[in-house]
């Protein structure tokens, strides 16, 4: 009894201290206050996230994967909120355990209790094991496992192994939802004690037959043979099988068919008896929508409700955000790694018929300090199609070299975001649409410059 009271007091103290930190960092304009409050509260009560998650009326949905976490989390929040639920979620891409803690703190009341029905948390792949342990989610969603920031996380394989162990150890009431089209994710699912719910695309008319250079995880986990791909959708996600029949793409429980793509503007697909049509573009987003659909169905939201609600969805920060800048229509698309970049370039060039680009590369911690991955991006897709390409960001010079060897006639590299915007004005005219594809902090920098010049709102207010 006494111990219980101490716990409550500690939890309340942690909540208050965390909340005060958040307010302070917003007042002093030191950023969105998205992670620091989590650090402070966790120092006072290391179990604070578990305690707060227990306050949720229904429980949590945890989303991980290399690409698409933020969009999928946003989709799920949108669906839950539309159904009248109070949702707590770590929205600003703050996807380490501290970010999730900070988000929960922000919604906790003065009594230290979290006042929400659902938690929707996007969690970085490397942090998934601790997140699953602390949050004890009702649903865990794994979107994909692509090659990402090798400098920070170590290698794909060791991350996949850790995720596998974390999911295997979950309690029986929790549901795992996995992308059947991703061979590395499928390998995780096939070794789980309880079968997961599988989702996958089922429309070969929008597939290609060859893997891009960025692809990895292409061997059979049992015999080591190179996998045969009958269809490739995004990165190494597609329909695959081992030549010795040792391993194959699991048959998806939830399938997307009849997919129609319209640039960055919209997509349509049939899933679970409903027709989804919504203002989000790109094949990679079909996966995010399908994943969100699968999770929403698993907690008993109806297919018709989901389809209806998604019609009015708005994308998250820097993900297909549109900004007007001195008569130019900028389309900001976060592009963080080879698989993501290949898709955003493909969508911009093939589907949106874009010809003018700013490509931004930074090498800060959040971007990955190793930029060698740009050589795995097929910038060759721009060759002969793009008329203006401005390399920008801290590592603009590296991009310039990459573009040169791709045969793209790029503008001079601009390491300063102000100079990059000036170059954009110089090289484009009023009425032009310019696709701005950037890594995380390169996008923050460019966006901050747009805010300074009065063309965009600070991100934590959008």
């Amino acid at each position, binding site marked *: 009894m006494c111990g219980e009271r101490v716990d409550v007091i500690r939890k309340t103290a942690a909540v208050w201290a965390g909340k005060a930190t958040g307010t302070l960092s917003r007042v002093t304009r030191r950023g969105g206050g998205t992670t620091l409050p989590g650090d402070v509260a966790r120092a006072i009560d290391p179990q604070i996230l578990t305690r707060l998650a227990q306050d949720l009326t229904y429980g949590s949905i945890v989303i991980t994967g290399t690409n698409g976490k933020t969009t999928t989390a946003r989709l799920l929040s949108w669906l839950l909120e539309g159904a009248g639920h109070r949702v707590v979620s770590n929205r600003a891409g703050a996807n380490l355990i501290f970010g999730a803690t900070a988000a929960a703190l922000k919604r906790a009341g003065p009594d230290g209790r979290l006042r929400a029905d659902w938690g929707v948390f996007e969690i970085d792949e490397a942090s998934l094991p601790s997140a699953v342990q602390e949050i004890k989610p009702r649903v865990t969603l794994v979107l994909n496992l692509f090659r990402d920031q090798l400098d920070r996380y170590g290698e794909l394989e060791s991350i996949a192994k850790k995720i596998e162990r974390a999911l295997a150890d979950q309690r029986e009431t929790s549901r795992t939802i996995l992308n059947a089209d991703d061979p590395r994710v499928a390998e995780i699912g096939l070794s789980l004690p309880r079968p997961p719910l599988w989702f996958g695309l089922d429309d070969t008319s929008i597939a290609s037959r060859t893997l891009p250079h960025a692809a990895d995880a292409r061997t059979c986990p049992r015999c080591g043979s190179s996998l045969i791909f009958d269809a490739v959708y995004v990165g190494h996600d597609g329909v695959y099988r081992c030549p010795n029949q040792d391993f194959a793409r699991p048959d998806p429980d939830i399938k997307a068919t009849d997919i129609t793509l319209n640039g960055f503007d919209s997509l349509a697909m049939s899933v679970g008896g409903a027709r989804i049509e919504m203002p989000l573009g790109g094949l990679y987003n079909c996966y995010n929508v399908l994943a969100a659909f699968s999770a929403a169905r698993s907690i008993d939201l109806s297919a018709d409700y989901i389809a209806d609600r998604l019609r009015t969805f708005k994308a998250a920060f820097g993900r297909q955000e549109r900004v007007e800048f001195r008569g130019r229509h900028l389309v900001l698309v976060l592009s963080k790694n080879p698989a993501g970049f290949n898709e955003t370039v493909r969508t911009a060039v093939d589907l949106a018929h874009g010809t003018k680009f700013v490509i931004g590369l930074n090498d800060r911690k959040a971007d990955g300090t*190793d930029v060698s991955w740009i050589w*795995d991006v097929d910038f060759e897709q721009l060759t002969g199609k793009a008329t203006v390409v401005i390399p920008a960001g801290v590592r603009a*010079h590296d991009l310039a070299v990459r573009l040169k060897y791709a045969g793209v006639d790029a503008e001079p590299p601009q390491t300063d975001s102000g100079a990059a915007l000036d170059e954009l004005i110089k090289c484009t005219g009023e009425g032009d649409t310019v696709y701005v594809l950037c890594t995380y902090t390169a996008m923050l920098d460019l966006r901050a410059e747009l805010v300074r010049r009065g063309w965009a709102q600070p991100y934590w207010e959008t």
Partner: protein
Amino acid sequence: MGAAILGNVSGKFTVGWLYPDLMNIYGDRGNILTLLKRAEWRGLDAKLIELGRGAESEMLDVDVFFFGGGQDREQALIYDDLRQYKQDSLQRAVGNGAQVLAVCGGYQLLGHYYQTADGERYDGIGLIDVRTEAGKKRFIGDVVVETEIEGLSPRTLVGFENHSGRTFLGPGATPLGKVIQGQGNNGSDRLEGCVQGNIIGTYLHGSLLPKNPQLADHLIGRALSRRDGGGLSPLDDSAELAAHDWILQRAQRR
């Protein structure tokens, strides 16, 4: 650009990429593209041969081999294949003057052995006199090296390292260079990479050759020199060297 190579007879230039699907973790395509493009820009007929598992033909046609790094899982998959199908041909090709650039895992596998933290030894193919032992801490970050290869200009090489192996050179190998920034082979002797005959081994990726065009030309030039004595015509390297200098400048600020 486009000026023909002086005195090249065959006009062909062939790059052999060892295990492009499995040993391709750190943007290694940059090294391949740089070799191919820089040969093309000089009017050579540049060709890439992908040497996956089981492949052994055409290895004697190769001018420059590239052998990159892989994850442990992939490295284990090529381990036997390297011995069975590649070792002899590679040795003969190198004996005939073919050049080899091996990075990270490829570098380790060309040496005598890799010893894990538990003391277990995985034999390499011993083409270079180096040995590698597992270390505790991963070395991750920018590297600047002052190279000891004759005639390279600039004398610096820039790249990015990410490895936990500690590699030590035997008397048969000379270092690729001295470490100015970063850790290099083992973090203790301030040396990076190795040069032994026609083989260069290194931990630098990033990719290595795009920002170090002088090293790319060194490999192309040496491979071609066995067929004729001509040198390579100069190219406009301002973009490559601007990226090179940017890393140097940042190293100096730190």
